[in-house]
């Protein structure tokens, strides 16, 4: 299962996290008005574990009628919820944060099963960030008067939220925590391939005693998302996902009074200068594109390396990639897990084939892929130019395109030469260069001498076609306030 046939006697024995900490029911309903309920038309869908294709559960599939029911429940709940003193709303959110911490191992295993990402990530990144996000926004609920949006800023009403499958519970936290803190109520649609953690979150809402209808969870497909965005009684639309769907949403809400925030695609440039701290840069490149199998909107999917150090950097990078361990996501030593779905795998595969056919040079470490499930070996492409599809289109997979540059100006020009503007990385030991380049990059998050760092206090969001609005920090409140 590991990437390389390790001849060393120091072969790490399997170290699987126990599945027994999580109890997945054979079926789940929609969570509307505090109750689990079947879909109006009785439809269901299966959710599978991407690493084994095992069916984990059968989940009710929301349709337009269910969306209407959920929005009405949220509207009814809004009256009391928005009238609660902020300090009371805060306590509900603190309760939720605490319960998430208590149940974090269970949720980490669940997320790994449903999503396919390594337990190392759900345990050490996703879940701690989820709890932290609720803690952070809990504290805002009774301090909104002092947040810089004027006295007594009002909530918008019912928020319709559609989230992706790459960080299912974390994206839920990014959406629900600020919405509730500011006094809105929520109808949230998780992605069809990863509905389970949102349904477990519904149970956490019940444990926390959250009033019914404040949070409604509607597992379903794109049609349910579209119905939610379209619903006339939704005041706020928040979406994280592809740029194509983001544009469709922007058209849908045109002419309405709905407030919209969109977190969309990216093609992040990771710029390595010749005076970089090389070993840390290599780690940053690896985390930038192979964290969560590269299924990250802010991934550093374009490596821009100064030509004078390209060869040695690539040697180091390849050597490092050879130590990555791909396999069972529940194994605590796994670095690279499964791709989330067959559909995503085929998208990655076809873009990689296009990269090859356009003449880029493909490389992967020696890598044995499991026989069942959806897998893709860590891949890098050299001989890539700005004109290649793999240098322009978001692949959303473990595929790195390597380009070179000669001068800082050229690096900036190439980095900015994209329809996207979500993230970028800069590696240099020269402070003035970092600040100058950071100032010129047209991207919402700039990681200098680090990459893929997240924090609830730190605003996240894009320029250009990567979307608009910010999530996280004081900035993140604005999306849910009538200001």
């Amino acid at each position: 299962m590991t990437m390389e046939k390790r001849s060393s006697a120091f072969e790490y024995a399997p170290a699987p996290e126990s599945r027994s900490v999580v109890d997945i029911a054979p079926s789940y309903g929609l969570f509307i008005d505090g109750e689990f309920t079947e879909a109006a038309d009785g439809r269901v869908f299966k959710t599978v574990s991407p690493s084994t294709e095992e069916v984990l559960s059968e989940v009710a599939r929301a349709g337009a009628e269910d969306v209407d029911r959920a929005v009405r429940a949220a509207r009814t709940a809004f009256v009391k919820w928005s009238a609660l003193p902020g300090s009371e709303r805060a306590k509900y959110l603190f309760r939720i944060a605490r319960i998430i911490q208590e149940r974090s191992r269970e949720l980490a295993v669940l997320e790994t099963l449903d999503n396919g990402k390594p337990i190392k990530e759900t345990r050490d990144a996703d879940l701690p960030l989820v709890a932290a996000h609720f803690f952070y926004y809990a504290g805002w609920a009774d301090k909104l008067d002092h947040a810089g949006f004027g006295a007594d800023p009002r909530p918008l009403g019912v928020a319709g939220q559609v989230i992706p499958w790459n960080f299912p519970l974390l994206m839920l936290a990014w959406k629900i925590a600020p919405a509730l803190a500011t006094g809105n109520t929520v109808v949230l649609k998780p992605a069809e391939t990863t509905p389970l953690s949102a349904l477990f979150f519904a149970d956490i809402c019940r444990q926390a005693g959250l009033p019914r209808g404040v949070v409604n969870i509607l597992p379903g497909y794109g049609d349910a998302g579209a119905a939610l965005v379209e619903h006339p009684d939704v005041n706020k639309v928040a979406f994280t996902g592809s740029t194509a769907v983001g544009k469709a949403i922007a058209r849908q809400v045109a002419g309405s009074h709905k407030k919209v925030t969109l977190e969309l695609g990216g093609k992040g440039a990771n710029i390595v200068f010749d005076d970089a701290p090389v070993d840390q840069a290599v780690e940053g490149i690896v985390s930038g594109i192979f964290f969560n199998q590269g299924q990250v909107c802010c991934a550093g999917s374009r490596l821009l390396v100064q030509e004078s150090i390209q060869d040695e950097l690539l040697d180091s990078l390849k050597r490092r990639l050879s130590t990555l361990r791909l396999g069972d996501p529940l194994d605590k030593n796994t670095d690279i897990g499964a791709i989330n779905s067959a559909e995503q795998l085929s998208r990655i595969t076809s873009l990689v084939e296009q990269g090859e056919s356009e003449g880029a040079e493909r490389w992967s470490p020696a890598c044995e892929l499991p026989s069942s499930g959806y897998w893709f070996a860590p891949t890098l492409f050299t001989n890539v130019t700005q004109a290649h599809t793999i240098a322009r289109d978001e692949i959303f997979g473990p595929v790195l395109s390597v380009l070179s540059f000669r001068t800082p100006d050229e690096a900036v020009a190439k980095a900015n030469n994209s329809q996207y503007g979500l993230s970028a990385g800069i590696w240099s030991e020269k402070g003035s260069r970092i600040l100058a380049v950071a100032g010129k990059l047209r991207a919402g998050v700039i990681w200098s001498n680090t990459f893929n760092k997240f924090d609830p206090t730190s605003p996240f969001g894009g320029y250009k076609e990567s979307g608009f609005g910010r999530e996280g920090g004081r900035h993140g409140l604005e999306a849910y306030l009538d200001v």
Partner: protein
Amino acid sequence: MSEKSERTARLSVFKTYKLYVGGKFPRSESGRVYEVTDSKGNWLANAPLASRKDARDAVVAARKAFGGWSGATAYNRGQVLYRVAEMLEGRREQFVREVADAEGLSKSKAAAVVDAAVDRWVWYAGWTDKIAQVVGGANPVAGPFFNLSTPEPTGVVTVLAPQDSSFLGLVSVIAPVIATGNTVVVIASERSPLPALSLGEVLATSDLPGGVVNVLTGRTAEIAAPLASHQDVNAIDLAGADAELARELEVAAADNLKRVVRPQAVDHWETPGIERLTAFLETKTVWHPTGALGAAGSSY
């Protein structure tokens, strides 16, 4: 210009009103003009009827100006905006006359409008080097990282100026856009475009780099359509659009996910808030490791 005000011994010299694009005063590429009348229907002047090609040229000029203007220090931008107020003040009488004609106001009412517009430039001049401190700042992340969020201008902004407030409304929608370093292509009030064109003449002599503000006149809907769908325009303010046009333009704007400000009722007499400043700002967040200085109390 009107009969009444020109009743003197000598024949007055009419002004040819021209567009203001890239710091120059071109006629419309179309070669067309349209008649502008006062509120009673009397002819005032012929204004350029800008075409989609004029719109295209204006975007090129605005994009070209963006690097320099957004890269200028906030202090410098404040100085330039204040200079606009100074220049306007000096041409106060001209603008009082033009606003009175355009909007059918008494001389005293028009004077109040012009004074308010001058004061608006002063208000925004003072904001250029303060807004970053109000909406940006350090974020206390849970780790050894310096983390700072700062606002940056969105880029090239198309503005549909208010139709009914041809001067105060106009100033109120373009000053906040350029204060933060954006550049603008503004479509003047369709019925009353002359104060906007005269403002171009003021801007040209106010140390404002060419292309930062570009003024187009003509049919709002016709000029706005190509700007709303233009892939090199980053945002659009629909202040001067009616509901139907606003919806169409918002749909077109989705093609490259422009930031959109929908039309809303605004009382231009009131001191503005910062909404129009922040509407065209992006937030950039920069992370950097801090580490520690030495062995004392840490592992270096």
